[in-house]
């Protein structure tokens, strides 16, 4: 899922300024990672009101990343949305832009930072798993993505900065190359990964703007 986190409350207040706001959440990823679900929006509404911000209403989109699903919902909230000076969105960057395109006359505030496509590893922690580069090579590394999980995107790792098997950049995390090595030893393909020079990655699909189906 898309992992996002709410922006710090003070930063949010600064963005809102003296404007009244209507809040949007999302029923999917933002609910699962607690950045824009029902519970978070109710809590946020109370905090905003306590900070003297006028909140005209709130709604959870189902989901925020769909341009087509939410028309009925908007009918119901039309007045509240009209009354608001700005729309604050607590979903991923995609959801925020969906709201923007549905309400072209309104100013939109992104209430979250969208972090990565990842996995929920415990109730409170998430890990990056995919950079969506458009040319998947995960199977060539035994189901582990070095482009995503190495901060230097190295395909011929590990780098010289990893210490005691941990990442140079995030020393509390295991170097992904240690994991690739362990799996390769189990599957018996260590040689093909660690002896053969892995060629430069194809980034040509990493910037595509649309896909027709």
């Amino acid at each position, binding site marked *: 899922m898309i992992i996002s986190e709410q922006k710090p409350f003070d930063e949010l207040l600064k963005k809102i300024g003296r404007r009244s706001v209507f809040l949007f959440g999302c029923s999917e990823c933002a609910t699962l990672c607690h950045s824009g679900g029902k519970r978070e929006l109710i809590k946020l509404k109370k905090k905003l009101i306590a900070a003297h911000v006028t909140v005209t209403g709130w709604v959870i989109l189902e989901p925020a990343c769909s341009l087509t699903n939410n028309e009925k919902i908007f009918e119901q909230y039309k007045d509240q949305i009209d009354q608001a000076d700005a729309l604050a969105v607590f979903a991923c960057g995609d959801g925020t832009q969906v709201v923007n395109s549905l309400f072209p006359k309104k100013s939109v505030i992104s209430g979250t930072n969208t972090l990565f496509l990842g996995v929920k590893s415990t109730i409170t922690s998430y890990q990056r798993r995919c950079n969506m580069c458009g040319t998947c090579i995960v199977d060539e590394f035994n189901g582990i993505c070095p482009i995503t999980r190495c*901060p*230097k*995107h*190295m*395909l*011929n*790792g*590990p*780098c*010289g*900065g*990893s*210490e*005691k*098997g941990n990442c*140079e*950049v995030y020393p509390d995390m295991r*170097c992904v190359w*240690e994991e690739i*090595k362990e799996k390769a030893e189990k599957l018996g393909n260590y040689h093909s990964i*660690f*002896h*053969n*020079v*892995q*060629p*430069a*990655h194809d*980034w040509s699909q990493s910037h595509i703007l649309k896909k027709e189906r």
Partner: protein
Amino acid sequence: MMKTDLQQVLNQGHFAVTAEIGPPKGSNPQSIVRKTEQLNGFADAFNITDNQTAVARMSSLAGACIVRQQGMEPVFQMACRDRNRLALQADILGASALGIHNMLIVTGDHQSKGNHPHAKGVFDIDSIQLISIAKNLRDMHIFENQELLKSKSPQIFIGGVSNPFVSSIPLRVDRLEKKIRAGADFIQTQSVFNLPRFEEWMDAVRDRNLDDQVHILAGITPLKSVKMMQRMKYHVPGVDIPDSLEKRMLDAEDVQEEALLLTDELIRSIKSIKGVHGVHITALFWEQKIPEIVKKSGLLPR
């Protein structure tokens, strides 16, 4: 095919010395000129670092050019952090055109560790891929996209780095072997402080006859002060300074004298290790000591 001085020294089986010159945080060429004047005649070639430790400085290509103008031989360092494959290939061709023929290729420290932590890291390719691209430019006359060069291919002596001190020795040696397979002609190692570990790594290197396939230059860094030693020990990724060495420095009456003594001991020990073909001296903020170090360790004349 032309050969660089460094290449000739190594090919003839002499013990080589390279030394590092960090470009300034400014545009005055004099700081490099001054260093070249101090160091002329004390090393075979001089590495010019490329935004080392992810700190922005004068470009390594410009620095290498200044060294060249002084009639000395540069080793142009290239990090994959700041440039993509177009820019890196362009610089390889440009460097060769400017008479700069030694290159050292590294992936580079992550930008989050440097002085512009908000920068976007490029990391389009890694060091091993760039070594292979450089070799193909030179030997196959092709760009990374397989297109043929339209004029002279670059004349380059290709270097890589190796860190014997992190993760398991077999993994480090496998990676060294990969660099050789990709096209590395010489290797400069991370600074050696942990001699037993370095010897263990060299044993593994010799076991696979890799010392016959590549020239290995061992990294040497005189530790100018306790502060610098502790910064390297605790904050620089990939550096292995044993506790016993830390204690020796802490107990020393004259830290700088002790540091030079230790450096001399290390160079003499390393020189006797079979398969090591030279030393690469990185005297951070202490370049003026390099002549003394080289003289004392019996590495003159160059």
